[in-house]
């Protein structure tokens, strides 16, 4: 119960911190918009290539700009002394991990929601039914959990390295490929108005579970000896 309260507290303060200048969400969002723009020059989105390219486009945009949000989880102005304060507070590392995952997840989801909306407007994507949209939302949420759960651990790892922003992406993106492949596949189905297959959900779900469990343990390992982290 106490852990739940500190969990909620940490998320609340992360939001307050973000609300000061919205810099994480805004930079993710702007970057996503720019990516969508650049895509239109790289490939003709209205051509016959169809939904497959669109599903890939949207997930690539999520991946590239979501990485910014994950990067900001432990980096930025004064982030290190804030982290020190949290580590000294009576909050367990596991709670801290889940709080960080949740707040980063929320930031990324806000970005994804707006990006998806803009994407649908710009590229004339229409969902056939509410169920199709629902399936799309399910797959986006599941995919983002996987993305963020491993991302937060890696972000805690690369936070003190000079040039760690790039390293984070180098480490994160290859790990993301399974969830990316499954999510693109599922998004294709959702955009075409088909039911999701078991395989897609199983793979993304398994990825989420494995990385939430592993991330929780390994996050503790990373921060248990602060000086060495």
């Amino acid at each position, binding site marked *: 119960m106490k852990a739940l309260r500190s969990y909620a507290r940490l998320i609340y303060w992360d939001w*307050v*911190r973000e609300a000061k200048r919205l810099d994480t969400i805004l930079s993710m969002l702007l970057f996503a918009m720019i990516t969508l723009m650049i895509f239109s020059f790289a490939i003709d989105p209205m051509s016959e290539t169809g939904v497959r390219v669109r599903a890939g486009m949207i997930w690539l945009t999520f991946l590239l700009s979501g990485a910014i949000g994950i990067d900001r989880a432990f980096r930025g102005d004064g982030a290190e002394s804030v982290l*020190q304060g949290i580590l*000294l507070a009576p909050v367990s590392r596991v709670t801290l991990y889940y709080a960080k995952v949740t707040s980063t997840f929320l930031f990324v989801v806000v970005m994804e929601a707006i990006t998806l909306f803009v994407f649908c407007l710009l590229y004339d994507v229409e969902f056939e039914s509410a169920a199709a949209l629902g399936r799309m939302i399910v797959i986006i949420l599941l995919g983002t959990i996987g993305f963020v759960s491993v991302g937060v651990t890696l972000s805690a790892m690369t936070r003190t390295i000079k040039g760690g922003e790039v390293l984070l992406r180098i480490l994160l993106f290859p790990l993301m490929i399974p969830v990316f492949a499954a999510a693109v596949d599922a998004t294709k189905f959702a955009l075409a108005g088909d039911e999701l297959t078991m395989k897609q959900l199983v793979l993304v779900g398994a990825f989420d579970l494995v990385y939430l469990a592993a991330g929780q343990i390994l996050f503790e390992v990373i921060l248990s000896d*602060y*000086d060495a982290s």
Partner: protein
Amino acid sequence: MTAAVIEVHDLGKRYGERDALRGIDLSIEPGCSVALFGHNGSGKTTFLKLLATLLKPTTGRVTVAGLDLARRSCAVRARVSLLLDRPFFPPRFSLEEGLRYFTDLYEQPWDEQSMKSVLERVGLRRRRLDPLNTFSRGMAQRASLACVLSRDAEILLLDEPYTGLDPDGCALVDSIVDDHSAAGGTTLLVTHEVDRGLRRSDRSIVFRGGRVVLDEPSSPELKDAVLEVLG
């Protein structure tokens, strides 16, 4: 004889092939204020961080307020307040917001009146709405002291609290230590100012090369001994 509030048995911390601390055996009674002296790299800050559970000991056993450090680190953190060189709140928060954040994070009740008196005491009342990144070094140190004052931790761990402070500020630190001792709390004070440290403490401990080389009750006459051990 009361039970010791901090029990350290054979504590050691290794960095690779070098020991930052080794074979530390100490027991500190509640209400005692202890001054820790030592050169840079002698292990005193490492010692404080071990007590505050920021670091994990390589060897040895530590109990703080009867709680095993390795197993109940969360409960230990609730009883210990560590002062480092920067306040722990986000730089864009104003001082008041920062304190609100701090007390919430450390599960302290928020009380407008007492917070006012804390700010009054550290001399930052008029700057309470300014964002923290506009604070100078000394002001930031005062803000850290406000954090310490806003908690009622049993054990204070002060890592070089005098740095960057004017004489008023130093007197403020002294009064904080005195009040804490008067209320029955324990203080560990790391400082390079031997005179001040000796005056402010009941017991002096000198670290050298990761070991305790002197452990005596404080008195003004001890100064020569401390300086000699420090070399």
